């Protein structure tokens, strides 16, 4: 373990952590698939995951991580070569390895080493080894090196190159399922890596002695190779692997056929870049004349044969002498060994020489006409982004205050107004842009659920098919964080309570395998995340009985609608599972789900058909920072009513108003009667007039409840930046936050959901006082 860690290293480590996490997240689903269909491509992909993790971890001296990755890799390699049979236990072990890797990565991130993971690493690699032993039985594993001990930290990624890169033509493999998003991130990362490598090669060409540079280049190319391998871009992988080999030779100080191979490597780099661009365009990674390029690079590595000869027992001095005296060492050594005739060598060399020249001739123009990278990304710290967005929010307010400045009232300012309009437009564009920056696709969140569903279905003994729909839908990053836990809870509930065990399903005439659909889409200015299952559905009678037993509702519940009954499952302290399992059913889940959603101003709907399944819809606002609001006035106070909840507004006449015996006012709108809530009562303000026909009624809707809000006047509509009321004040019923208006004044944003409640409280309070 290196004692001293400098800034650069920290950066490298952080990059390693992020990359590895991404890889694990992407691959976990694939590992689970292994259990179901172990096609060659999936196994290869997983193999490469562990392989690149091992490489990087080894390079950074995270020995325990490397050890586990190596053990997993061994197991997968045997499976891949059909030397052992895949059993479900292997999937579990690999999942365990993934978990370990995640934990180790957390540790690496905080402490920059994985020392504390010794015992866990021991256990997991031991398990993996046992699995290999058991599976192998009496099998003889020809490709297996005897020194595949996990404790060997010096194990280098490059040592068994022949094993890493399957030499069989990979084009034959069916394409692994690669989403557009994965493809994009591959292209981005590929571009980054290639560019870094290119810069490294260029400066290396000038400073051939710089060992650090080589290390950098090698790492870039190595990561690129890993990525290609993971995505199954075999052509790119083959070429970059070849480059990696050469760089490794250079790194370890071996001499090459050419003094400084930077030019040849650059030419290959260009070919790789072209391949990446092709992929970005949606084409495959096919490289024409791949074999030739690889062979060209091979000629650079030629002296390495000397090492092999040494292993074969040829005296070192002899080889050294050969290398020294001969310009063309390959042939010479081969001849010395007696495995090839001088003629053969001559012919081969001639061919190679021709090809090198051809490549050089062709590579040059490629370098000049190099197409630029398709898309550029940088990783930015979230804190910076947040303050940028806050600043833009402030800017919107400042712009409003400037344009609508009271000092300008009544002045004829044609030029100022023009400039002002231009500025408003820019500010609006800036704001929209800022909002999109924070949006990320839900696919990451959804994919995490695959593992969860797998684990639960195994535990609960149910067969589940999880379908993900609309993964590309984008949601604010903080929203994604907030709905992660709710989603986990809901899925658990669906699987545990909703879906029936296989025999019960068969008895009900359904497919033995249950289906859970997780989908996301944009709807009505919101994002809807929907969880559907085709299980037994919610049991109304059971819910009612439980609610009455727990004292959540009063009476026998016969006055409740189906929807209200379904919503009871979100009441605090409600849990209907007859038997509390370790998966769900502690009675804390569902109300936490609701609370989390309310935090982000989201809503939750449940619908269910007995025997057919249930559907839970999370309705989430697109952004947390801005709402469309109607500015309304009561007396001297202005408030904002979210436009989304407004159905209509009208000036009532007395004929429309009915007063019930207990003093409740109802307004008739066409065929419906809605209770009236007077905003001035809630705010404790003096309105212009208390007579309903003098003011305006706004019909508001919250979930299924509709009511009328009585106000003096509607002043206009505006996009408003939401600000929280101070913590010092805390939660105010009926108010969700505030905003700053164009004149610099603060205006409250009404919370339609709690308005009804607070109106009722007011009323009761008044009655009590009387």
């Amino acid at each position, binding site marked *: 373990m290196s004692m001293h860690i400098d800034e650069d290293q920290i950066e490298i480590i952080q990059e390693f952590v992020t990359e590895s996490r991404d890889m694990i997240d992407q691959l976990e689903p694939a590992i689970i698939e292994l259990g179901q269909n172990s096609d060659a491509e999936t196994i290869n992909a997983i193999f490469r995951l562990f392989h690149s993790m091992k490489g990087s971890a080894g390079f950074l001296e995270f020995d325990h991580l490397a050890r586990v990755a190596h053990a997993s890799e061994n197991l997968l390699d045997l499976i891949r070569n059909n030397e052992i049979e895949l059993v479900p236990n292997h999937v579990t072990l690999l999942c365990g390895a993934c978990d370990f890797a995640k934990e180790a990565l957390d540790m690496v991130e905080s402490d920059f080493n994985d020392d504390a993971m010794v015992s866990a690493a021991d256990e997991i690699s031991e398990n993996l080894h046992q699995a290999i032993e058991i599976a192998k039985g009496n099998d003889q594993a020809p490709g297996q090196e005897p020194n595949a001990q996990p404790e060997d930290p010096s194990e280098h990624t490059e040592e068994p190159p022949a094993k890493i890169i399957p030499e069989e033509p990979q084009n034959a493999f069916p394409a692994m399922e690669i989403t557009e998003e994965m493809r994009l991130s591959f292209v981005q990362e590929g571009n980054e890596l290639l560019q870094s490598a290119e810069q490294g090669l260029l400066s290396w060409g000038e400073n051939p002695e710089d060992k650090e540079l080589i290390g950098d280049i090698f790492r870039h190319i190595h990561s690129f190779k890993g990525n290609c391998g993971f995505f199954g871009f075999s052509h790119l992988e083959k070429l970059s692997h070849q480059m990696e080999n050469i760089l490794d030779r250079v790194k370890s100080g071996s001499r090459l056929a050419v003094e400084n191979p930077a030019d040849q490597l650059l030419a290959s780099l260009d070919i790789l870049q072209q391949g990446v661009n092709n992929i970005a365009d949606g084409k495959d990674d096919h490289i024409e004349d791949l074999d030739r390029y690889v062979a060209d690079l091979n000629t650079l590595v030629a002296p390495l044969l000397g090492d092999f000869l040494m292993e074969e027992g040829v005296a070192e001095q002899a080889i050294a002498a050969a290398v020294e005296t001969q310009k063309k060492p390959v042939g010479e050594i081969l001849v010395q060994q007696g495995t090839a005739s001088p003629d053969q060598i001559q012919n081969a060399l001639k061919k190679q020489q021709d090809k090198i020249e051809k490549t050089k001739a062709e590579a040059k123009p490629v370098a000049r006409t190099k197409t630029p990278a398709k898309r550029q990304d940088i990783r930015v710290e979230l804190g910076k982004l947040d303050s940028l967005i806050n600043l833009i*929010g*402030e800017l919107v*307010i*400042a712009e409003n205050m400037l344009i609508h400045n009271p000092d300008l009232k009544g002045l004829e300012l044609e030029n100022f107004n023009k400039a002002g309009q231009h500025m408003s437009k820019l500010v609006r564009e800036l704001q929209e842009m800022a909002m999109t920056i924070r949006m990320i696709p839900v696919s990451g969140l959804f994919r995490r659920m695959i593992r969860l569903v797998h684990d639960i279905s195994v535990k609960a003994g149910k067969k589940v098919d999880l379908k993900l729909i609309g993964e590309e839908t984008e949601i604010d990053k903080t929203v994604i964080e907030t709905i992660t836990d709710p989603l986990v809870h809901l899925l658990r509930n669906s699987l545990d309570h909703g879906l029936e065990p296989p025999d019960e399903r068969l008895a009900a005439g359904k497919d033995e395998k249950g289906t859970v659909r997780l989908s996301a889409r944009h709807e009505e200015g919101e994002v809807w995340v929907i969880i559907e299952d085709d299980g037994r559905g919610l049991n109304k009678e059971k819910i009612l009985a439980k609610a009455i037993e727990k004292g959540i509702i009063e009476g026998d519940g016969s006055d409740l609608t189906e929807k209200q009954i379904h919503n009871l499952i979100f009441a605090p302290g409600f849990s209907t599972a007859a038997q509390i399992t370790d998966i769900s059913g502690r009675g804390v889940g569902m109300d936490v789900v609701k609370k989390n959603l309310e935090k982000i101003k989201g809503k939750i709907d449940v619908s269910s058909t007995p025997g057919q399944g249930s559907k839970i819809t999370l309705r989430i606002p697109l952004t947390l920072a801005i709402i469309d609001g109607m500015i309304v006035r009561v007396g001297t*106070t202005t408030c904002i009513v979210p436009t989304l909840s407004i159905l209509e507004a009208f000036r009532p006449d007395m004929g429309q108003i009915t007063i019930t015996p207990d003093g409740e006012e109802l307004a008739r709108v066409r065929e419906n009667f809605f209770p009236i809530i007077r905003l001035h009562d*809630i*705010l*404790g*303000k003096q309105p212009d007039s208390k007579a309903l026909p003098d003011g305006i009624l706004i019909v508001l809707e919250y979930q299924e409840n509709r009511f009328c809000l009585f106000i003096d006047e509607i002043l206009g509509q505006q996009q408003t930046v939401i*600000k*929280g*009321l*101070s*913590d*010092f*004040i*805390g*939660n*105010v*019923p*009926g*108010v969700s936050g*505030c905003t*700053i208006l164009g004149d*610099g*004044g*603060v*205006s*409250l944003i009404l919370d339609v959901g709690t308005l009804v409640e*607070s109106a009722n409280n007011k009323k009761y309070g008044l009655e009590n006082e009387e």
Partner: protein
Amino acid sequence: MAEEATLTAVDNEDTQKDKYLTFHLAGEDYGIEIQFVIEIIGIQSITDVPDMPAFIRGVINLRGKVIPVMDVRARFGLEDREYDDRTCIIVVNIDGTEVGLVVDEVSEVADIPEANVEPAPRTSKNNDNSYIQGMGKINNDVKILLDVHKLLFSGEMQDIAATMEEQ
């Protein structure tokens, strides 16, 4: 960075020690420790917030930040007085919470060494004394030194916090 921050903190503590911002309220002089004071602004339009104790007058816009405003007269149960052009809002910050305090008039920053600060008198009716940190003497004048923390968080505000937690 961290070192710098502590340095300035030490620095501030040194220069701010024993310094009090004094203000008038209903004929008496009060003082609060200067380290809590962010700035002093003139009175401006305050937006009402429903369901608040009477001494929370509402919220104001402080350069894009929304902060609550407490009327110190109302807090002490003194008679209300029309705001005029001498009325000030002292913005204080305690543990990251910014609150504006409405006072009749801000006087000056006074140096009151620890030796000149008497402990708060214990009276039979010592309800409101809980906000008093001590009595500061400058020559013949007496300034009532307020405990800003208690001013902000004790009494009714505590109840609000408690109900919030329950919710």
